[in-house]
């Protein structure tokens, strides 16, 4: 019996129509979650999600599945904590098994200045509702007996902030949970339907062009990852977004034996064990901007050496597979959600390396925005207009990037 297969719920496909109240471009987590919440919380089901390839084929199927809220500014912490909370009840709500597991996340510090940052992180996180405590090397060793606290003699572990509710879920199954829930309520999800342009009536966006014909829409939302700058350009919207490749790899599958998620603030890499037993290792995104999905050996080398310093046992694990996604990174390293200044066109982007964890909260907030025409308070700080207004939300230190 294959539990993984048997627990899947059914996807109900529909024939496309030429007109919808809402058209969402991008059948990844954010697009499908928005559709799901529009259907479940606002009763809007005359809507279509257009996917260029197959659902979850973009970054939703290429991320490292970590759910956490230990960000560096209150606005972000609250937003991601809400997302973390929604994730923790998503299985009950949708009836789909997303393989959600609460693991706890250790952010290791190797220097006094890094300890200072982690102390600050723990305090601000806790004050904003994201449970995070400072732990010392003895406590770290108890949580991760495999760790070399000397860091191979090079990266001594002085302490860590321990974000207790951090968890993981199977990325594909999150996409399918939202897709299934939306489709069941009548939402149309159209695969293999790349959008080639936007239809405009004066200053307003009134539909999309696709290879198989025009589709008109009351509201068009872009939930595109990777090529978002091009989609926005069709509406005349210029985004402060750069796109970088982000790579990761997994080893073969081993028996369960590694509990928490470990992230390193200096080495900028992280590791966890998946439900399938694979050790999953990721890194900051590539420095160069690119839409390329090619994996590099240099990435593998850098991660392999870093993890060997911290967790010597990984040395004998066999690397199974590498892959690459695309990170849309905004000028202040925070997401961009909401109105664009162009009527009929709203956007959710700038998801960098933090998109997966934001799927439930991002989808719920965008659904409310579309349904009510008003920006929910939770995402007000993340409006596109903040760049022109000089109200940026810089939070670079929380992203596993620099």
């Amino acid at each position, binding site marked *: 019996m294959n539990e993984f297969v048997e627990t899947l719920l059914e996807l109900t496909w529909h024939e496309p129509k030429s007109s919808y109240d809402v058209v969402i471009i991008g059948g990844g987590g954010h697009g499908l979650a928005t559709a799901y919440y529009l259907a479940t919380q606002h009763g809007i089901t005359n809507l279509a999600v257009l996917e260029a390839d*197959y659902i979850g084929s973009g970054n939703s199927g290429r991320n490292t599945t970590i759910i956490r809220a230990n960000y560096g500014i209150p606005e972000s912490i609250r937003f991601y904590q809400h997302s973390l909370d929604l994730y923790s009840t998503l299985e009950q709500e949708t009836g789909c098994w997303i393989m959600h597991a609460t693991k706890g996340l250790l952010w290791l510090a190797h220097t006094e200045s890094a300890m200072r940052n982690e102390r600050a992180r723990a305090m601000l996180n806790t004050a904003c509702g994201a449970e995070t405590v400072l732990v010392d090397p003895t406590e770290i060793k108890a949580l991760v007996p495999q760790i070399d606290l000397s860091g191979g003699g090079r990266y001594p572990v002085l302490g860590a902030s321990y974000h207790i509710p951090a968890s993981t879920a199977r990325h594909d199954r999150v996409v399918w949970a939202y897709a299934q829930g939306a489709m069941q309520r009548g939402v149309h999800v159209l695969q293999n339907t790349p959008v080639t342009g936007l239809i405009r009536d004066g200053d307003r966006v009134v539909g999309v062009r696709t290879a198989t014909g025009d589709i008109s829409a009351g509201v068009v939302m872009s939930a595109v990852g990777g090529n978002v700058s091009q989609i926005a350009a069709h509406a005349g919207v210029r985004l402060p977004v750069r796109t970088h490749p982000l790579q990761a790899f997994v080893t073969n599958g081993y028996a369960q034996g590694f509990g928490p998620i470990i992230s390193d603030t200096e080495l900028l890499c992280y590791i966890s064990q998946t439900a399938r037993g694979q050790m999953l290792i990721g890194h900051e995104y590539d420095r160069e901007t690119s839409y390329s999905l090619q994996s590099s050996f240099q990435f593998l080398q850098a991660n392999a050496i870093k993890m060997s310093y911290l967790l010597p046992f990984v040395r004998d694990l066999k690397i199974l597979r590498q892959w690459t996604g695309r990170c849309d990174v905004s000028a202040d390293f925070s997401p961009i959600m909401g109105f664009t200044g162009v009527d009929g066109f709203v956007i959710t982007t700038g998801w960098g390396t933090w998109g997966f964890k934001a799927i439930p909260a991002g989808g719920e907030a965008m659904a409310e925005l579309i349904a009510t025409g008003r920006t929910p308070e939770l995402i007000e700080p993340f409006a596109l207009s903040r760049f022109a207004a000089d109200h940026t939300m810089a939070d670079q230190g929380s992203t596993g990037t620099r």
Partner: protein
Amino acid sequence: MRFALDDQPVDFVDGDSVAVAVVRSGQHPQHGGALCLTGDCGNCSADVDGVPFTRTCLTPARPGLRVRRHPAVGGPPLQLDPPKNPVQSPVHAGVEVHRRHVDVAVIGAGDSGTAEAARLRAAGREVLVLDSGDGDDVVGVYPGPLVVVRTPEHMLHVHAHEVVIATGAAEVHPVCEGNMLRGIVLAGAADLLRSKGVDLGTTVTVDIAELSRFEGTDGRVTGVVFSDGRSEACDTAIVTSRTKAPRDLLARMVSDPNVRVVGPAAQRFDLPPAPVDGFVCPCSKITVGDLQMVWDKGFQHLELVKRAALCGTGTCQGGVCMPHLRSFVSDKQGVEAAPFTGRPASRQLTIAEAAADVFLDPFRRSALHDEHLKLGAQMDRFGGWWRPWNYGDAMREYWAVREGVSLGDVSTLGKMIVTGPDVVEALERLYPTTIADIRPGRSRYVLLLNERGHLIDDGMVCRESDDRFVLTFTSGGAAFAEAWVRDWIDTWGLDVRIMDRTISHGAINVTGPLAGALLQRVGVAEPPKFLQHRHATVAGIDCHIMRLSFTGEASFELHHPVAHSVELWQALMKAGRDMNITPHGLQALFALRLEKGHVIVGMDTELDSTPRRLNMDWAVKMDKPDFIGRTALARTADLPDRRRLFGFTMDGPAPTEGAPIYVGERIVGHVASTFTSPILGKAVMLGWQKHEPWADTVTIDGRPATVAHTPFYDPEGARARA
């Protein structure tokens, strides 16, 4: 000769792979599944000498080898034992890397590879042929192109102008009822086993086009049932396939104009009949029934079937299942399904093999590193350097600065000489401060802004003559600043020479009320005045003395060739012995500067801190025609701003750095830096308010704190000038 399989001896002969020897002993390296013995499937992988998922068909048998089968259900255990000697870096042990630079690398020495290599050689090209039969196991072809290879002895990185993938085609594995039994081999494997003298017993040969199912007892094959209903008993079933599947994983993982695919690896092939039963993906134990179930649930796309059923995501990366998965999907959708994405690695390597011969950036040490250690310093890394954090008692160091004399190693500061006819013009554009009116012998504190008007560094500009300046930058920002300054000057095409002296010159900060007196003892009769600088001999060493103040006390930075750092440090320590001279580390320095309200870039500032947000508009001259960041500052000058760095004070001990700042229940910001000032008798802080209106009284750590002007200590700066 013997090795151990699950602790039981297995005999082998010279030339045997582990898999061949295991089959010769009547066993199977796993618990079942057809064997190809060519590395295409994962059905022979086992734990070899503590490394699970090793393909035993590619592992030469050796005496003493310890082979363990993976568990029948679930993965092999993670070997979590901590290393025996954790302090010794384990990272570079064991794996050697060889590098080859070649004109053409041909992967595969079969018919197509051999022919291609001959053709290229005839055309005068230098060719390296890599074949798994010779032990060259290709892990991946990466952009470059770079071919990463495992060999039995070492890793091999081949940098080639051109890569030819000539990996040929692989026999197709059987997918039908009973295909996980032991005793099923592909035709090539049967030939290999026979050539090694392995007795296969009674054999039956069947083509997959005519195969219905295998029969067996106790997990071992006993017979073959053909599609026409006929059955034959056997000890070993040999499976042939009329068409072979291109070995194109390497080709699918790279897209590079200098990589091409030749021969059967590039050819179209006829898919096998759609599978109806059995295990389609032995690596992940996925059955045809699983595929059918996900298809019926609406996962009707090859990639969705793969992801939903997890078919093809195991060790062989689709080597076994791909033809059958494609056939299954093609049959359903009526259109031939393309293969799924190819991703490295083609053949798995260990993390140690990937990490071999890789070195991370070194941590830098100043020339005074050993002096600090001798003085009992606790070292910490800051800004890429090892720095003294304290010398055992940060408060003692603090008081030495405030009341006596102290040394600080500031060798890590960025130090640059800029000269040339256009130097003033260049600096006027680089810095928001006025440069032209700095007189030779004088210096000025400067901000460095990026195009967005955000603070990226700060430092001093010291003018030596009309066309010669010395610039300093922060320790952590020096490398970036050097590139920044060079790039901009090149961009502008200005006639300026740049010499970076960050590494070649050390610097010692002599600070405290007795600093001037100490300098007099070591030969500087008249130390420079505040914000002046000049060259002088100190204890016999040529120094450039810059008088400024970060600590709030009289401070003289002695910049000198790094070869003399130790000599100068020792001379100063000796001359100040009766003054109780005490060096200070970063911990004391951070406290001292905080009493003066000086910000540390990166610690108190944020990614998007404009001078206005830092109350540093005094360091920006908007009346200058241009400087980097001016456009952005002009654009944002009239926009409402809701962020500002404030000084705060409160009674009692300092809160923890990073503590949230509240107005009522609302978090309005956080404490950037704080310190319980013994000289002021209260906690002093720099902290952010990110909401208007600005509050005068806030709550931190449950206690009231009030906004206070900086500097907290000696606001007139009398001590720095003394």
